[in-house]
């Protein structure tokens, strides 16, 4: 009897390959390829007066150098604005190679192709560019002041201004018994996958076909872009995603300049060309995220129940807006988390700066929104002198209120309607897991030893599995092997395992006989991509539906062969058999043979399917309405996103003298609907928490006033080591299935990282509440140095919270002027 695979902790089949160094990444391919290097702007803002490449052509081993003047047709146009939005009135994108102006350090100016990367870099050093310097705009304060402009034709540096509201927040706040306002800051970080960007292209001169291997989160997107930009028929372009060493969002942006320039050069030179981004390039020429300044006003009752919430924030989108407004829209909607605000208004401005572009990074705007809301919850609890968990609980959407309509528009252009959840139960689980009710005892015992402990919590809701669709194709070969293709890509999520589990269950085949291919446009040309915690929901559902189709077809064919009714058949262990009569069975491989009537025999199995062996001579060999082959294809396209949720708690110990922050315990409760593979979900949470620790305590993009990134290396950009990540991350699950898809799935990929800034701010503030007293953590990430400076600031007689609160209320009307 086949055991059910769904829900089992199946070890990932891909890990044997990865752990033995047998992964195949872009740089493992194309040993015969020429290598590219890119001249990048050393200046944050400058006009290009002249580019002199004459010295380059004398370098031995150089094959070609491209500048903007070498680009023609669509390649000479700006790169696509991938996600337009009516509010994005001043969207701007860069050129594949800078035309007359550079807008951030790292922007591509020239593209050199040489025998190897060493020679290519030597050649890049010989290009002479004459610049006319322009004053750079760095940071949100400078962008808002707008004394200098990033783009001459974008007044105020404002790419977009968007407001959404439900009810009348200002009136509700004015009428509320209690009011607070908060000013919050959150800094930039970045995806920083282990493998940077990389592209290899081969042009087949004989057939006029282009093959591109690229480290992307969307092979179909890159394919369409390459075809359009290079003037090729879509059918003449294949994009194949080999193993990808992490994406975390940065690789959903496409086409990167190099994803077009590499195939362009391969066609021009008639030789394969490869570009492999190095680490410094990744810091200065890919994408960052997170930076926002936020202003929150809230009105609430004696229990801490929200009556009105009015949020304004300013989002730093960097130099260009290729990915539209996705990040700030997610912040503005997902800020609400598991709570009912009753009256809500949110306004944001997306602003240009002369820095690297800002596009989704794991969490994609949610960490900022959760930070704003959870800081607000903590402030309300402090103001009322109430337990922080209790204040959250009175605001929860209740289990009987689903589907819950926030009456706002989500990032996919669809209504923000939560499908299912049980937030009170999640909070109960979290409190039990971390020992919430006993913490004061723990704190007191530690304090007796001179140790300073703090406990924080944060809650979030995450819209996952956004559309528009994904598809799957499944083919059962005559050997009985099952070949599955889905078009979205894989960056280490374990799709080969999780998707095979779904197929094994639905089709009734051994898990080991299923092979999954992702991100290859030759196998599945219709797909969207891997982002927004959507792979399991979208492709998982599509694969389930496709497997059902294959199963139905197998049963129809087998019913003929076994002279039984379809209703009496089942598929177990790869064989179709009559229920209750297991001896009367036929292997799926044989069904595959029968599904494809043949003229020619080439082995014993195919001999069984030739024209003198099978079929009714009175009927067409392929029955009407059928197709040859045991195959199935289907697509899944949901009406809207499904909403996962979770809550994190952390206990930190902070050195009273050095302000060093140590994580003692970290607890996660998580609800992503039904779990396909709990071990993979656990791994996603572990990785997310690790990344969140980085974002909360270590990582920032340290730009100076000239727009130079001072920490563009792993020596100074502090990604946490294993020694900085908590040893044991305690996890508990709740499973409230989504009603929107056949398997009840919700996404899990981003969950671990979303509440990090909020939960650490909460814990640090809690630890420091007595000494120096009323210290408010309003800027994240926070380092020991910053925490020390914050303590000193408060010790020197900074006004305590009550006075500050009053002062902020008085000035809040002024804050509201921008941007609403």
């Amino acid at each position, binding site marked *: 009897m086949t055991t059910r695979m769904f829900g089992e902790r199946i070890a990932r089949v891909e890990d044997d390959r990865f752990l033995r160094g047998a992964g195949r990444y872009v740089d493992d391919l194309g040993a015969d390829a020429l290598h590219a290097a890119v001249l990048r702007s050393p200046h944050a803002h400058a006009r290009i007066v002249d580019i002199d490449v004459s010295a380059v052509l004398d370098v031995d081993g150089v094959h070609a150098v491209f500048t903007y003047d070498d680009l023609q047709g669509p390649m000479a146009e700006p790169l696509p604005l991938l996600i337009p939005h009516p509010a994005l009135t001043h969207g701007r994108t860069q050129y594949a190679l800078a035309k007359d102006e550079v807008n951030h350090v790292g922007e591509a100016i020239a593209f050199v192709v040489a025998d190897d*990367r060493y020679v290519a*870099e030597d050649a890049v050093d010989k290009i002479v560019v004459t610049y006319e310097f322009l004053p750079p705009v760095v940071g949100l304060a400078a962008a808002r002041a707008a004394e200098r402009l990033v783009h001459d034709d974008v007044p105020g540096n404002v790419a977009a201004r968007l407001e959404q509201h439900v009810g009348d927040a200002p009136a509700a706040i004015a009428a509320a018994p209690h009011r607070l306002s908060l000013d919050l800051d959150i800094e930039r970080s970045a995806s920083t996958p282990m493998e940077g960007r990389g592209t290899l292209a081969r042009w087949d001169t004989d057939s006029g076909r282009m093959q591109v291997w690229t480290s992307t989160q969307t092979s179909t997107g890159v394919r369409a872009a390459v075809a359009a930009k290079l003037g090729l028929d879509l059918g003449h372009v294949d994009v194949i995603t080999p193993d990808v060493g992490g994406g975390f969002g940065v690789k959903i942006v496409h086409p990167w300049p190099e994803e077009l320039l590499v195939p362009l050069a391969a066609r021009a030179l008639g030789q394969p060309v490869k570009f492999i981004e190095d*680490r410094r390039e990744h810091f200065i020429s890919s994408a960052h995220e997170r930076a926002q300044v936020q202003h929150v006003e809230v009105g609430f009752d004696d229990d801490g129940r929200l009556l009105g919430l009015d949020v304004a924030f300013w989002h730093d989108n960097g130099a260009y807006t290729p990915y539209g407004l996705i990040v700030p829209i997610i912040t503005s909607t997902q800020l609400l988390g598991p709570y009912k605000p009753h009256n809500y208004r949110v306004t944001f401005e997306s602003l240009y700066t002369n820095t690297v572009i800002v596009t989704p990074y794991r969490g994609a705007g949610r960490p900022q929104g959760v930070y704003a809301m959870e800081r607000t919850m903590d402030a309300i609890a402090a103001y009322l002198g109430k337990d922080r968990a209790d204040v959250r609980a009175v605001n929860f959407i209740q289990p009987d209120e689903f589907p819950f309509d926030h009456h706002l528009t989500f990032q996919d252009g669809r209504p923000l309607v939560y499908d299912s959840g049980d937030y009170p139960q999640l909070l109960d689980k979290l409190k039990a897991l971390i020992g919430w009710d006993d913490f004061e005892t723990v704190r007191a015992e530690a304090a007796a030893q001179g140790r300073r402990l703090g406990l924080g919590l944060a809650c979030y809701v995450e819209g996952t599995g956004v559309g528009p669709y994904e598809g799957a194709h499944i083919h059962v070969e005559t050997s009985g092997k099952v070949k599955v293709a889905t078009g979205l890509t894989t960056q280490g999520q374990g799709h080969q395992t999780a998707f095979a589990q779904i197929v094994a269950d639905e089709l009734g085949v051994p898990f080991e006989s299923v092979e999954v291919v992702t991100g290859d446009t030759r196998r599945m040309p219709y797909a969207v991509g891997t982002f927004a915690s959507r792979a399991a929901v979208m492709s998982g559902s599509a694969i389930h539906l496709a497997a059902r189709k294959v199963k139905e077809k197998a049963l129809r064919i087998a019913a003929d062969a076994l002279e039984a009714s379809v209703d009496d058949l089942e598929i177990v262990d790869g064989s179709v058999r009559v229920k209750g009569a297991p001896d009367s069975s036929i292997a799926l491989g044989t069904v595959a043979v029968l599904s494809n009537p043949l003229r020619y025999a080439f082995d014993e199995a195919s001999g069984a399917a030739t024209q003198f062996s099978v079929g009714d001579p009175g009927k067409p060999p392929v029955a009407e309405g059928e197709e040859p082959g045991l195959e199935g294809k289907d697509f899944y396209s949901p009406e809207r996103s499904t909403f996962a949720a979770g809550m994190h708690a952390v206990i930190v110990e902070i050195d009273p*003298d050095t302000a060093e922050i140590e994580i003692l315990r970290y607890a996660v409760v998580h609800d992503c609907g039904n779990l396909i593979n709990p071990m993979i979900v656990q791994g996603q949470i572990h990785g997310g928490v690790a990344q969140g620790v980085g974002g909360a305590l270590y990582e920032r993009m340290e730009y100076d006033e000239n727009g130079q990134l001072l920490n563009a290396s792993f020596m100074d950009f502090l990604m*946490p080591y294993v020694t*900085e990540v908590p040893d044991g991350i305690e996890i508990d699950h709740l499973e409230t299935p989504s009603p929107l898809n056949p398997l009840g799935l919700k996404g899990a990929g981003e969950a671990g990282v979303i509440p990090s800034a909020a939960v650490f701010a909460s814990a640090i503030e809690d630890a420091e509440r007595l000494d120096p007293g009323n210290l408010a953590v309003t800027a994240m990430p926070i380092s*020991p140095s910053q925490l020390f400076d914050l303590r000193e600031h408060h010790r020197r007689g900074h006004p305590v919270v009550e006075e500050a609160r009053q002062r902020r209320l008085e000035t809040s009307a002024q804050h509201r002027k921008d941007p609403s």
Partner: protein
Amino acid sequence: MKPAPFAYARPTDLAAAVEALAGSTNAKVLAGGQSLVPLLSMRLAAPALLVDINRLPGLDHVTSDASGVRVGALARHAAVLADEEAHRVQPLLAMALANVAHATIRNRGTTVGSLVHADAAAEMPVVLALLGGSVDVVGPGGRRTVAGDALFLGPLESSLAHDEIAVEAFFPALAEGSGVAFREVARRHGDYALCGVAVLVRLEDRRIVEARAGYLSVSDLPTVVDLAPALAGGGPEVPSDRALEAAGELALAALDPQGDIHATAAYRAQLVRVLTGRTLRAAYDDARRRTEQP
């Protein structure tokens, strides 16, 4: 991140290595390469010639006697860290080496290479300066000994001539009645410290009579401060909190902590204060333990 072109020599005897260096005014010695190779890859250094000394014989020793520990130019940090005899003769070596980067870097990086790289953020230059050690160098004119306090001229600048190779470092043994300790605060385990302190004390009748501290990552040079004045006047056996604080203030008066992207000047000053007291106290405890349980 690929180096600019350079010539490469891998001599098999010391004389040939010195000759190769002397033949170029823009040559660098390659030993462990843990600092040099990244600089080459980022094109922050572009020497015309690399002289790889890894094939030179007889330079990978760690030898200890009553006078101290001698470390050859090709002895890796990991080998020094694992050497029990060296640990017995001068325990500060292992205390500091445990803070040098990560195991993979210690497996390749050399202690002598770290000294002549003269990075004020590195642990071993401070240890050499605090202990009053020295480095032997060989050049066209023969072999000479450079005292620890004469080795470091400025940030990443040693007093070696361009055609000299450091062949051995000498770390004096821990004297009787003495104790040592090492503390540092880094952003992540294995990172360069925001501030690090090594302390050497000597006791007489359970009281501190000598106390010196070496500071890394605080100034442009590894800096040694005499803390004894803060502890003067005898007092109780165990240094009081007030004395430890005074030592921190004394150290701070001799240093000029600077801010950078990881720490403000005020925070670094706080670390000098706090770590001076904590390390001094630990060194005192170390000395007590050694004298009372020899």
